[in-house]
Structure formats: C-alpha cells, structure tokens
C-alpha cells in the first residue's frame, strides 16, 4: 500500500515526473534560446512560473460551471501522471503492465488535450472557444498518424505491451529500420504538445492563449504541469521504441535529451501553420506516410516470417 502510494506520488509518477518535466521544459526553452542566439531563462524560471501561478488569484469566469472548470485541470494532470505508471521512466522498467497497455497509455496522454479542449469550450470566452475548436481539430488530425507510428514497433515486436515492445526494440535502433514511423511519431508528439509549427491552438498573436485564455492561478498551473509531464512521457515512449530502448537512468537522460534537441531544432526553423494547413498536412502526408511505413513493415514481415 505504502509502496503504491510512493509510486503514485513520488516515483516514478508524481513528484519525480513533475520535477523531470520542469527541468526538461527549462532545457527546451534554453535550447530554443541558444538556437536563436539568445541567453534564455535561468534554471529556476519554470519552477518560478508555476509557483507564481499557484500563488495567484484564481478567477472563475461568470456563467461557467465552476466545478467542471476546476475539475478539468485536475483530470488532465491526473491522466498524464497515470500514464507514467506504464512507461519506463528514468530507464527503469514500468511499474505496471498488462497486454495492451500501449493503447491505454496513448489515450491517457490524450486526456490532457481533451480536457484542454473541453476547458476552452466551457469557458465561454471568444478566444477560448476558437482555441477549443482548434485544439480538437488538431487532435483529430495528428492522433491517428501518431498512433499508427507507435504501432509500428508494436507490430514488429508482436505485442501491445510497452515493456515487451521495448525489450524487442533493445539492441536495434528502430529509427533506422522504420525512419518514417520515427519522424511521424516525433512530429506527432510536437502536435500533441502544441509546439511550433503546430501551435495554432494557442497562437498568441491571434487568439491570446487559446483554450486556456480564461484560466488563471492553480488551474493554469495544473494544465501547464500536465503538459510538462506529457513532454516527459512522450519523449520516453519514443526513445523506448525507436532509440533502442531505455536500460538505465543515464541511457534515459541521453536519449530523451537527444530527442528534445531534435524537437527544439525543428521548432526553431518553422513558422506556425494555420489550422487548415495543419489538418491538411497530417491527413495528406502524415497519415499517408504512416500507412506507407505500415505497408513496408507488412511486406518485410511477410518476407521474413
């Protein structure tokens, strides 16, 4: 019982992932800054932001279902944290597993996006509603290719259980044998995290902060934490599948940071896509590429089996 509480609140879910998320968030900001020839924030900036938000007054807009408004960020963060229980956080084997936990994890990770969309939709602000529409539109565009890209390694391993897939992927870097899947997965993660060029849902120059415009204080802090947790989860998942598995903490740090650098690099050289362009890109190219990868896998498997 105590052990489970520890696992839930401290390690691997809970506190550890939160700290991990904040640190990675800082690293990504710092990387982007350096790539743009700037200094970037100091190490405590993300922590300071969260602490400040937690201390801030929380404003609930008039005419909004207050309970739902307050519950959504909690659900979002809880969903993201729950997903961590099935992931090889810090290179250690996942705490829990069962056949098919990959699908559950991926959908737990999507809970945050759904909650963000819902939060925007109930907020009644004009920017929030437009933001919510965009969040959900984007969700439906990247989710299928992203899932297909993650199922590639699962297909090769013949299992839908994260640790088994990872065990199969160890020793061989699937990003070399399934490059398309890797790229689609990485870019899908950027869509999930609403990183440029997929930041139309929170495009500050158009709709202020998108779906979360009306959020302040704790609610906003929880959403932001949820996104940082998701960053960790997403990087872990891709590193475990495509970069030859995660075997120890060092392995974990090196591989996830490499991915983070890749994300920061892609982020800096791109302009924001309009939401219609995002959808077009994912369905026209993303989904197609993921299917091509699948076809290639089917053929190669067919040959080898």
């Amino acid at each position: 019982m105590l052990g489970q509480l520890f696992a839930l609140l401290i390690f691997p879910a809970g506190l550890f992932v939160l700290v991990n998320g904040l640190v990675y968030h800082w690293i990504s900001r710092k990387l982007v800054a350096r790539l743009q020839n700037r200094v970037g924030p100091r190490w405590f900036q993300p922590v300071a932001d969260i602490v400040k938000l937690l201390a801030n007054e929380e404003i609930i807009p008039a005419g909004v279902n207050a309970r739902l408004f307050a519950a959504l960020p909690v659900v979002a963060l809880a969903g993201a944290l729950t997903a961590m229980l099935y992931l090889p956080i810090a290179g250690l084997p996942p705490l829990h597993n069962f056949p098919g936990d990959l699908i559950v994890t991926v959908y737990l990770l999507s809970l945050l996006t759904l909650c963000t969309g819902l939060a925007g939709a109930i907020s009644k602000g004009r920017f929030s509603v437009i933001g919510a529409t965009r969040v959900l539109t984007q969700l439906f565009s990247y989710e299928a290719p992203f899932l297909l890209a993650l199922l590639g390694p699962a297909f090769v391993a013949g299992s839908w259980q994260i640790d088994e897939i990872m065990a199969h992927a160890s020793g061989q870097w699937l990003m070399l044998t399934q490059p398309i899947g890797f790229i689609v997965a990485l870019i899908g993660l950027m869509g999930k995290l609403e990183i440029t060029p997929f930041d139309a849902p929170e495009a500050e120059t158009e709709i202020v902060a998108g779906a979360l415009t009306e959020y302040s204080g704790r609610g906003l802090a929880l959403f932001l934490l949820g996104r940082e947790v998701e960053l960790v989860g997403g990087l872990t998942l891709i590193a475990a599948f495509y970069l030859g598995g995660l075997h120890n903490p060092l392995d974990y740090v090196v591989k996830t940071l490499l991915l983070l650098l890749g994300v920061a690099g892609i982020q800096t050289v791109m302009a924001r896509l309009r939401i219609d362009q995002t959808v077009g890109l994912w369905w026209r190219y993303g989904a197609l590429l993921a299917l091509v990868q699948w076809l290639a896998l089917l053929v190669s498997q067919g040959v080898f089996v």
Partner: protein
Amino acid sequence: MKIAMMLRDVLRSLFRKPVTELYPAQRQPTPVQLRGKLHWNPEKCTGCCLCIKDCPCDALELITIDKANKRFVMRYDVGRCTFCAQCVQNCRFNCLGMSSEDWELAATDKAPFTIYYGREEDVQSILDCFAETGDRAEE
C-alpha cells in the same frame, strides 16, 4: 522547394556565445554623443534664458539672485527632461552640456529628479530661502 532555411543560422548559434547583453551585470561603453544628464556651468551664464524659452518640456528654470553680478541658480528637472539638447544648441556661451557618462537616472522617489546647479553658496541660499517659505516658488 526549400524548407528550414534558417537551419544554418540556428546550428551556428548552438556553438556561439549568445548576443544578449547582460545589462546591468555587464555594461557596454557609451558613445561620446550620448545625451545623458544635463550639466550647467554658472561661470559664463549671462541669464539670457534662451535655453528656457525653447525647452519643449519646461525642465529648466533659472532663478536670479543678483542679475548685475550674474548670480544665478539653475533648477533642472530630470524627470521632465527629454534629452533633446535644444538648450545646449541655444546657449551661446557654452554653459550647458550633456553627459555621456551620467545616464542611469532612474530613482525610486522624486527627490533626486530636482537638481540645483550653481555656485555652492548661491544654491545654499536658494535652498534656505525655500526652506523658510516652505514652497518651491520663484525667488
């Protein structure tokens, strides 16, 4: 079709020092032309008040103690000054100048913004006079 054309800049920056100036920890040297705080030299002033006439923001005031002996005190309001240097241009006796060193003029209260220039004893007599009358009116 080309994409990611800023990639070269981006990669180069990764191995280069950021250009951000870490003010106030590091200060860049200022050019000599910089128009900072105004300085007034009472020795040559004739009290013609041309500087005051054209000041666009009423930042200057010349208090006459003894016109015949050319004893003046200049009250300068840094908070109002726009640092345009028109007064420096107007002065035919080169009494006015703007410092290129003294430019970090922010303060947390209003007191440092009022500056009295002049011979020490003149400034003192003016301040005493204000202390007596309890206001900052002229004369």
